[in-house]
C-alpha cells in the first residue's frame, strides 16, 4: 500500500453512490435476539393486516347465531364470539385496524412533533418558550383524558380516534427532537457548513434532521405500541372504533361481560394487543442499541 498520492488516473471513476449505513445498522440489529423476536411478531401482524382477506378463514362480520361463544374447535381455531363470529378472523382483520391506528397516529405526532421540536431547538428565544410552555400544558394533562375529550369533541370513529391519539403524543416527540437539535446545533460540522455560507434551512434539512432520526425512530416504534393500547382503552370506555369493525380493544371491551362464562372472548384479543405492544417495545430496544450514537465515532 503506497501512500504517495497515486498518480495514475484511475481508469473507472468510482461510481458515486450513496452507500447507506443501513447494512451496518441491520447487522447490529440482527445480533439482538429479543429484537428479532419482536421483528418476527411485527412481521406476522403486518402480514395479517395486509393479507387479511387470504389468511382469515371466515368473514369477520358474518354471524352464526346458532353457535355463539363456542370454545376453540377445529372449524374455529380460536372459537366464536358473542354473535358467533370467528374470533381468529376478527383478530386478523383487527390487526389491520390496530396497525393503521398505530401508524397514522404516530405519523401525526411524528410530523407535528418534529416540526415544533426543530423550530424550538434551532431558533430558541420567545418562540421556543411559548411552544415549550404549550407542550408543558399538554404534558400536564394525562393522555387518556386528553384522548377522551378530543373524541368527545370530534365524535367517535376510526379517523377521530387516530387524530386524538396523535395529538396527545405530540409533546413527547417535540421534546425529544428539541433536545437533539439543541445539542447538534453546537456541533462543529454545523459551524463548518455555516462557515461555507449555508442558510439555516439548508443546515436544518441536510445536517440536523438526518442526525436526530435515530431517537425519533426509536420513540416512533415504542409509540406505535402505546397508541394501540390507548385505542383499546378508548374502546373500553365506549369511545373507540365503531362496531361492527373488528378492533382488538372493542372485542376486549364487549368480551369482558362474558369473562366468567366465555373467557376466550377476552383472552385472545388481549393476547393480540399484548403481542403487538410487546413486539414494538422489543423492536424499540433493538433499534436503540443498533442506532446507538456511538456508531458515529
Amino acid at each position, binding site marked *: 500500500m503506497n501512500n504517495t498520492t*497515486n498518480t495514475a488516473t484511475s481508469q473507472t*471513476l*468510482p461510481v*458515486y453512490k450513496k452507500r447507506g449505513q443501513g447494512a451496518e445498522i441491520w447487522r447490529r440489529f440482527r445480533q439482538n435476539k429479543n429484537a428479532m423476536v419482536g421483528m418476527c411478531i411485527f412481521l406476522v401482524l403486518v402480514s395479517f393486516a395486509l393479507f387479511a382477506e387470504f389468511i382469515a378463514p371466515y368473514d369477520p362480520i358474518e354471524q352464526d347465531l346458532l353457535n355463539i361463544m363456542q370454545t376453540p374447535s377445529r372449524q374455529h381455531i380460536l372459537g366464536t364470539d358473542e354473535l358467533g363470529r370467528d374470533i381468529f378472523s376478527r383478530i386478523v382483520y383487527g390487526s389491520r385496524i390496530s396497525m393503521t391506528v398505530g401508524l397514522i397516529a404516530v405519523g401525526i405526532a411524528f410530523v407535528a412533533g418534529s416540526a415544533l421540536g426543530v423550530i424550538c431547538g434551532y431558533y430558541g428565544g420567545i418562540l421556543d418558550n411559548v411552544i415549550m410552555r404549550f407542550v408543558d400544558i399538554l404534558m400536564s394533562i394525562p393522555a387518556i383524558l386528553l384522548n377522551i375529550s378530543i373524541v368527545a369533541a370530534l365524535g367517535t370513529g376510526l379517523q377521530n380516534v387516530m387524530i386524538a391519539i396523535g395529538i396527545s403524543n405530540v409533546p413527547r416527540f417535540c421534546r425529544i427532537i428539541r433536545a437533539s437539535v439543541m445539542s447538534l446545533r453546537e456541533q462543529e460540522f454545523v459551524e463548518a457548513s455555516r462557515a461555507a455560507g449555508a442558510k439555516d434551512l*439548508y443546515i436544518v434539512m441536510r445536517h440536523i434532521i438526518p442526525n436526530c432520526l435515530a431517537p425519533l425512530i426509536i420513540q416512533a416504534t415504542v409509540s406505535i405500541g402505546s397508541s394501540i393500547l390507548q385505542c383499546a382503552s378508548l374502546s373500553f370506555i365506549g369511545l373507540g372504533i365503531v362496531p361492527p369493525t373488528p378492533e382488538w380493544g372493542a372485542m376486549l371491551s364487549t368480551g369482558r361481560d362474558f369473562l366468567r362464562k366465555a373467557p376466550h372472548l377476552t383472552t385472545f384479543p388481549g393476547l393480540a394487543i399484548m403481542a403487538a405492544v410487546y413486539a414494538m417495545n422489543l423492536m424499540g430496544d433493538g433499534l436503540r442499541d443498533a442506532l446507538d450514537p456511538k456508531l458515529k465515532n
Partner: protein
Amino acid sequence: MKLLEVKNLKKYFATKNGLLHAVDGVSLEIKKGETLGLVGESGCGKSTIGRLVIRLLEATEGEILFEGKDLAKLNKEEMRRMRCKMQIIFQDPYASLDPRKNVFESIAEPLRVQKVYSDKKELERHIYELMETVGLAQRLANSYPHELDGGRRQRVGVARAIALDPVFMVLDEPVSALDVSIQAQILNLLQQLQKEFDLTYLFISHDLSVVKHISDRVAVMYLGKLVEVSNYKAIFKDPLHPYTQALLSAVPVPRIDVQREKIILEGDVPSPINPKPGCRFAGRCRYCEEVCKTETPPLREISQDHFVACHFPGNRV
C-alpha cells in the same frame, strides 16, 4: 498589504453570575501569505477570536477589516459571498464531519452551497482533484467518517476548506487531537498547501513547538488579552513577557542535552467573569508590583516588531 486587520476586538458572554470577558480588546493584523500563530492555554479566548474574524460569532465591539472591508458592516447576502474567501478547520476530527454524510458529500457541500458547479461531472472531477491534493485515495469517496482514522478525517476537513479556493484560513488546533506521527503529515500538508495556493493562515494552538514550527509571527494570549506579539525567532529566543517565559519553560522538551531554568507558576488561571482592572497575570507573576494591580499594561512595541503588554518587560532575576 494587510489581508486582515482587527481593531480593539471584544466579545462578552452573559452568564448566570456575571459577564464573561472571552476576548477583551484585541488588535492584530496578518499580511497576505503570512502565518500568524496564536498561542495560549485553554480558556484564554483564542478559539473565540478564530470564530470572530470569520464572523461565525458576532463581535460585541471592534472592527474586522478583511481586504479593507469591515465584515461587521456587511449584510447577510454580501457576507455569504465573502465566505468563499475565508474558511476554517476544526480541532476534533470526529466532530467536524457530519457522521451521516460520506467523504464525497462532506467535501462537495461548500461547492453545492455556493452553487459553483451546475454540471455533476464537473463537480465530481473537482472533488477527486481535491482529494488527491490532500492525499486521500479516491476509493475513500464512499466511506463514512467513523470508518476513517483521525488523520484521514482531518484531510477531509482540509479538502472541504480549500474547495472554494479561499484566501484566508483559520486553523483552530488542527493537529492537537492527532497522534505525533500523523500530526507531522498534516503539518507538512498545510505548509505545502500554503505555498501552492498562497494561503494566509491564523494558526491557533496550545502547543508551542507546533506553533513555532509553522508560524512566521506568534502572538501569545492570556485571559482574553494579547500579552506578547513578535516574529517566531524573537519570541522563543528572547521572551519578554513573564507569562511567555513561564510558558516556554513549562513545555517538556524531548532532549536530555538541553538544561533549562525551571519557572513553575503557582495557582490557577483566574475566572474570566467580571475581571478586575490591572494586569490579568498580576496574581501569578513573579515581578508583580503595585502598578500591575491597578493599571492595565497596553501592548507596546519594545523593540523592532516585538510588542509586549507588561510594565516591566524582559525583567530577569
